[in-house]
């Protein structure tokens, strides 16, 4: 179990005064302090951890966020920013002495500019909401995390979220132009704007993925892209992980950049097929979903090339979609993966390591060994183009020993990712979940250096202070 930092006793003692002060700063209904109404904010997508916060503030403007921060900074009150609460790493887990600043009321789209291909949105607009606002003109916002229906762009910025199409379109950091932020002192700053590559230090790049450690994000200027003429998918099934991995390498080496390249192992195939009846090959050890873009003729050309490559790797079966409907059917199982695993096991941990793609067969073999050692089932879903591995570790939340083993198993998988040359997290963030594993990837002096940067923005460690950095090593910063 992961510990929480010691709450500040003086803050807990002043709770009523702090709530009253926040109520004076914000509209009547924007401060929550009643225990029953605080309950929904006690956890996020990492539901194993819960902590009721001191209070919740729901600002509806940047000015209100700034007012909250000026007050909290002056009073030494910690804050925890929160979007939709979909973080799988506990990025929005509250602290007992912290005010949660929920961004869900800041859900306006402020500007859409097709000629200059950007949109300005408030932090509480959902990821899919951006695409929804521009798709009638054929545009979209590229990063597409699985939670895109619910997750908010402010959280995407904080976690530098990815998705299934990163190989071609990049992650959140590659699709931003500007941010409006509120500093810990309550100053409002515009970083970047509607133009590319602002001169000076790359604060935009540093803030993206900083997990709420450096500032609060209230507005985001994103690039919007025109969609290509169409997309189509194909499915290839193989008799081993090694062969499927070799096929991925051959596709990349051929000069084709597929827009998506998803890998599922045998347990994932079976779980998804039982759930979605997508026609997945149950005899396969590994399966690839490969998606290409362009006109119908371009899609045909690319799929023919890829088919030829796949055929050189003795596939068990190949299914090339002939229509948008058939593509949807191929994706149906993959997109329902979380629901499918949830049907087998109501509780599971979704891990998020990254490995050099050439090490996939070895890593899957060792995960299989760990699965037997820990006596827990695991299914692996892998963004094969970029090496982002999502083992879904199934456990029983009613059995504390099972949960403990699942956490140990997950930690071992992430250590393995680092050991083979990868990293602890590709798109979910460190949060509380991987906080204590940071020394696996970073030397002590490197963590001290990162903490110095954190302290340059937030000298009093008021911003999301229970995340990212190992709890015991903070004093050194």
């Amino acid at each position, binding site marked *: 179990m992961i510990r929480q930092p010691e709450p500040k006793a003086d803050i807990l003692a002043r709770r009523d005064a702090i709530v009253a002060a926040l109520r004076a700063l914000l509209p009547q209904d924007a401060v929550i302090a009643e225990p029953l109404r605080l309950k929904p904010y006690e956890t996020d997508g990492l539901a194993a951890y819960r902590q009721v916060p001191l209070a919740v503030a729901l600002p509806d403007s940047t000015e209100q966020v700034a007012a909250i921060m000026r007050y909290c900074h002056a009073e030494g009150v910690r804050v925890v920013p929160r979007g939709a609460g979909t973080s799988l790493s506990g990025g929005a887990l509250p602290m007992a002495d912290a005010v949660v600043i929920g961004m869900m009321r800041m859900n306006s789209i402020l500007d859409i*500019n097709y*000629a*200059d*291909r*950007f949109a300005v949105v408030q932090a509480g607009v959902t990821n899919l909401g951006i695409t929804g606002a521009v798709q009638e003109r*054929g545009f979209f916002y590229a990063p597409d995390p699985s939670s895109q229906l619910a997750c908010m762009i402010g959280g995407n910025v904080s976690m*530098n979220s*990815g998705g299934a199409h*990163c190989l071609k379109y*990049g*992650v959140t950091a590659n699709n931003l132009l500007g941010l409006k932020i509120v*500093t810990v002192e309550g*100053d409002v*700053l515009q970083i970047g*704007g509607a*133009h*590319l*590559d602002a*001169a*000076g*230090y*790359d*604060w*935009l790049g*540093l803030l993206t993925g*900083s997990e709420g*450690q450096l500032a609060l994000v209230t507005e985001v200027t994103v690039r919007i892209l025109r969609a290509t003429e169409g997309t189509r998918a194909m499915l290839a099934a193989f008799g081993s992980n090694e062969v499927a991995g070799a096929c991925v*390498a051959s596709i*990349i*080496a051929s*000069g*084709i950049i597929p827009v998506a390249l998803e890998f599922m192992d045998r347990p994932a195939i079976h779980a998804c097929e039982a759930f979605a009846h997508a026609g997945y090959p149950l005899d396969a050890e590994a399966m690839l979903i490969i998606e290409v873009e*362009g006109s119908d003729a*371009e899609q045909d*050309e690319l799929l023919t090339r890829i088919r030829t490559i796949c055929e050189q790797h003795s596939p068990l079966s190949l299914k090339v979609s002939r229509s948008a409907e058939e593509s949807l059917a191929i994706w149906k199982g993959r997109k329902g993966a979380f629901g499918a695993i949830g049907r087998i096991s109501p509780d599971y941990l979704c891990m998020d390591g*990254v*490995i*050099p*793609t*050439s090490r996939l067969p070895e890593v899957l073999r060792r995960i299989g060994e760990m699965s037997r050692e820990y006596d827990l089932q695991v299914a692996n879903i892998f*963004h094969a183009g*970029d*090496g*982002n591995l999502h083992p879904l570790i199934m456990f029983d939340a009613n059995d504390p020993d099972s949960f403990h083993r699942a956490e140990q198993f997950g930690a071992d998988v992430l250590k393995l990712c680092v050991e083979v040359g*990868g*990293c602890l*997290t*590709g798109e979910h*963030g460190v949060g509380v979940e*991987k906080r204590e594993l940071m020394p696996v990837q970073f*030397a002590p002096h*490197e963590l001290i*250096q*990162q903490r*110095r*940067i*954190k*302290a*340059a*923005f937030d000298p009093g460690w008021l911003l999301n202070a229970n995340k990212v950095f190992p709890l015991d090593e903070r004093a050194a910063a």
Partner: protein
Amino acid sequence: MQQPEAPTSADPIAPSDEAGIAAAVAAAGLAQEPLLVMGNGSKIGMLRPVQAARSLSTRNLTGITHYSPEELVITARAGTPLADIEAALSERGQHVIAEPPDLSALFGTNAPQTIGGIAATNLSGPRRVAWGAMRDHILGMRVVTGWGEVIHSGGRVLKNVTGLDLCKLLAGSHGTLGVITEVTLKVLPAPETIGTVVLPGLDAVAGVAAISAALGSPYSVSGAAWLPARAAARVPALAAFGAPVALVRIEDFAASVRYRTHRLRDDLRYDATILDDATSRTVWRAVRDVVPHGATDAGAVWRVSVRPSAGPSVLREVIDGIGATGYLDWGGGLVWIAAPATAPAHAAVAAAARAAGGTWTLMRAPEPLRAGIQVVPPEPEALARITRRVKAALDPRAILNPGRMYAGI
């Protein structure tokens, strides 16, 4: 090579390994002696001059240390010339995605630029508009901080959100926060073929409207520029048009390039010209390397970045106001400006950029001018305070390229 500005930059401390760099930085820290940090010094004429008695170069840290084509990852020591990296990638049909410019003509130098220098300056070419900046593809770095310590950030995998992204902070920090000793890049397959649609005779406003329509088309445009007749005349393949040209680039397999350039020509204008692969390569190299503002032009050169539709008005303002010349890349959003190297000219460029809500970078000017003006936009005080603290967090004795971007930082 252009005469270096600082007295000893021609004879820098140039260790042959990372430990040597760390030792040199540590020694400079103990002595409280600022260092001019550089690779081969090919872009040393950018931004403000550094007041330092000694120079530290990474030019002897050379060599590709890791290249995995099927994983799209390459790692090289900071002093490795870009040309060496491009050659290694080319053998496997891959390329550096952000297409960094070769500014040797602009700076009048033949020093080969290093990958460390490119990372430290975060300069990207025409492909930036579609595929991201140099910093977008820096997966990992090793850096010697002002504390004299070696740290790494990122790694050698394509996705990584573990901890603060110091690669982004270091990229484009011009050696003021650390000495980059090794860089890992994401690379991609190089396109089989390049094609260019040329729309001659459009003024800047109409030209940007056309290339903006192309960028908003479903045809995956990877370059979009507008050159006035005078700039086009400097590019042999374009001179014959005798007119301003709007340029749209497609890079892909040959059949796709043929299909999409023709679709764009039909959608944009029936009398557009399509350039073949070889000609396209020459034209876009010229746009990338700022050939329209070569070494033969006296004076100062700026890069202004604004929203694409504002590019023409920025250009018009500086042409009318200070007799500047210029051209537009990045769909209109990157304005290259050349004008007399005077403080009033700089003020006019800065004012035009600011009025359009964008930013400027002084790329080239004589040292006295560079020393006395804001070469990049000043930061508001609340941000400048953070900047000072971040600088102190990485370079506590202020020995790394002091004053290169901002006076006193």
